[in-house]
């Protein structure tokens, strides 16, 4: 059985213009110890999807479908059971560690809070546990006494990861954990994350718009567009040979250094993702698609299994 399973998940946000669909039928599974990358532009629904795992969406959001953790559905769970799931089965590392940490609390107190609440260790050992956590993410002990503003961006992001680890979850969801960071610090943080996933045999969902980051850290990648998955596959294979026209555009946006075709030829993708209130008919991607034909605006795209775990949702790909 998969550790985490999304079964036909739909999320709609209530607004003045009616219900806006942010996630439109996603089915995905994460096995224990597996790292799944979710790629896509802002507004494609990737963070919304991740937030369903811990039921962190605002009340204006209506969620349908099933989100199974170890077989039990998070969406219908009672409060007490959900509380046990949060932190100890699945934990989130939010984007923008700058804003996610409490600015007036020392690092050690913020780290200790979930440990105390979930009583994972006797209270006499909390301090010890905090120090171990910091060590796991490669931070010096001196950081325990610091306030968030005294830390650099990379250090704060490590504190966020340490917090997520506090109750030894089986799954970590990291939402753009390195977006605002420098390449070198990004490499450090990604290394910490992948090392932990490997050492502790955790599952991880990594969300990013940078396919390159996902390809180097994940086992599998799912690409989202307008609330749906348009392509899934083994990370490196998908990055090396993307099939869906949208994935191709995303992959081309971050050039490979040394690739003569990318020299003086930055690749963009014209237009913007559709607004949630106005999702195009047929294939949602057709207005921006480089290879769309007339029928793409009418008929819904079919799911094509290309073998070796690759699926593409497009009428123009495959046999």
């Amino acid at each position, binding site marked *: 059985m998969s550790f985490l399973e999304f079964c036909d998940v739909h999320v709609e946000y209530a607004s003045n213009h009616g219900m806006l669909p942010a996630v439109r039928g996603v089915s995905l599974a994460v096995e224990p110890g597996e790292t799944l990358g979710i790629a896509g532009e802002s507004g494609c629904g990737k963070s919304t999807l991740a937030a369903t795992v811990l039921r962190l969406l605002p009340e204006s959001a209506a969620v349908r479908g099933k989100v199974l953790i170890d077989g039990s559905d998070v969406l219908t769970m009672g409060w007490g059971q959900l509380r046990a799931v949060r932190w100890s089965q699945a934990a989130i590392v939010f984007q923008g560690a700058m804003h996610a940490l409490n600015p007036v609390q020392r690092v050690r107190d913020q780290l200790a809070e979930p440990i105390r609440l979930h009583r994972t260790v006797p209270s006499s050992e909390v301090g010890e546990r905090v120090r171990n956590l910091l060590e796991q993410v490669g931070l010096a002990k001196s950081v325990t006494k610091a306030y968030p503003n005294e830390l650099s961006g990379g250090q704060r992001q490590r504190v966020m990861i340490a917090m997520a680890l506090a109750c030894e979850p089986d799954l970590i969801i990291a939402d753009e954990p390195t977006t605002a960071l420098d*390449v070198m610090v*990004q490499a450090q943080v990604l290394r910490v994350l992948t090392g932990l996933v490997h050492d502790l045999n955790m599952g991880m969902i990594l969300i990013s718009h940078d396919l390159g980051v996902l390809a180097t850290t994940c086992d599998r990648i799912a690409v989202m567009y307008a609330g749906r998955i348009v392509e899934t596959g083994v990370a490196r294979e998908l990055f*090396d040979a993307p099939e869906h026209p949208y994935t191709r555009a995303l992959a081309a946006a971050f050039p490979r250094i040394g690739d003569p075709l990318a020299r003086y030829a930055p690749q963009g993708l014209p237009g913007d993702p559709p607004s949630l209130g106005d999702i195009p008919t047929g294939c949602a991607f057709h207005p921006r698609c480089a290879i769309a034909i007339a029928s793409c605006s009418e008929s819904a795209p079919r799911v094509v299994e290309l073998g070796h775990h690759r699926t593409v949702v497009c009428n123009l790909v495959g046999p």
Partner: protein
Amino acid sequence: MILSARDVAVTFGRQTRAVDGVNLDLVKGEIVALVGESGCGKTTLARSLLGLVRPSRGVISFEGSPLEYSTRRLKAYRSQVQLILQDPLGALNPRHTVYDAVAEGVRIHGIPGDEKQLVSAALARVGLRPPEQFFLRYPHELSGGQRQRVVIAGALILQPRVLIADEPVSSLDASVRGEILSLLLRLREELQLTVLVVTHDLGLAWNVADRVAVMYLGRIVECGPASEVLTNPQHPYTKALMSVVPDVSQKDAIVLQGEAPDASRIPAGCRFHPRCPVAIDQCRTTMIPILVGSEGHEVACLLKGKS
């Protein structure tokens, strides 16, 4: 040569040497990428090139004449050398329409001509067409890419010779990024603009830059043609930076420990030696001369050519 820095240093307070001796020439019509980690001094160097901070040592020259720091001279200079900020949402006043945002420079600098025509032309130039449709829109009604274009239009309307772009695409989605970079290339082609792009994104440099200058702790440690520096980096720092760019041709990543060190405590000898994976004893003590910062491929490393 249109813009050049000669032996420029910028010191904050008594000890912080944000820029610590830099030579850099920008030739007319070229795109140069200035790359490095946060805190390496690249933004401070850019600000000194814009006349926004006065170097504590060295000279900035524009078209051969040293920059003068009187208010009047600086104002004239700034219409020639324009800054494009990162974070277009922060750079635009949320209560100004697109028209006002773009026309602001015309009003401040008293540019002659029909304001409406100038604004139209600038918006069309950056691909916001038809321009009239954008006049009365507010920043929040635009997409990230459109906002960045508005910021660029506001700079272009003064008909500058040089653009200095600080992380022009770092907050943009992958798909928009390519469009903005293509725009920079097109502007260089059409207007013979010279562009300095300040960034930590090496892929961007590969996409658009003719030359790359790599900065570390206040100095340029390697510079030269982008095609050489990025495919055959010589400085251990450039090698490390290149090795952590996420792409799947996984060379062995050299992940340096710690973050860029403190500009108030610059190590003696080679400033990179405490983090350098190949440093030898002499690196702690031997001073390394400042690079010329012109067209050739130069490396500020004792061990160059020896490894």
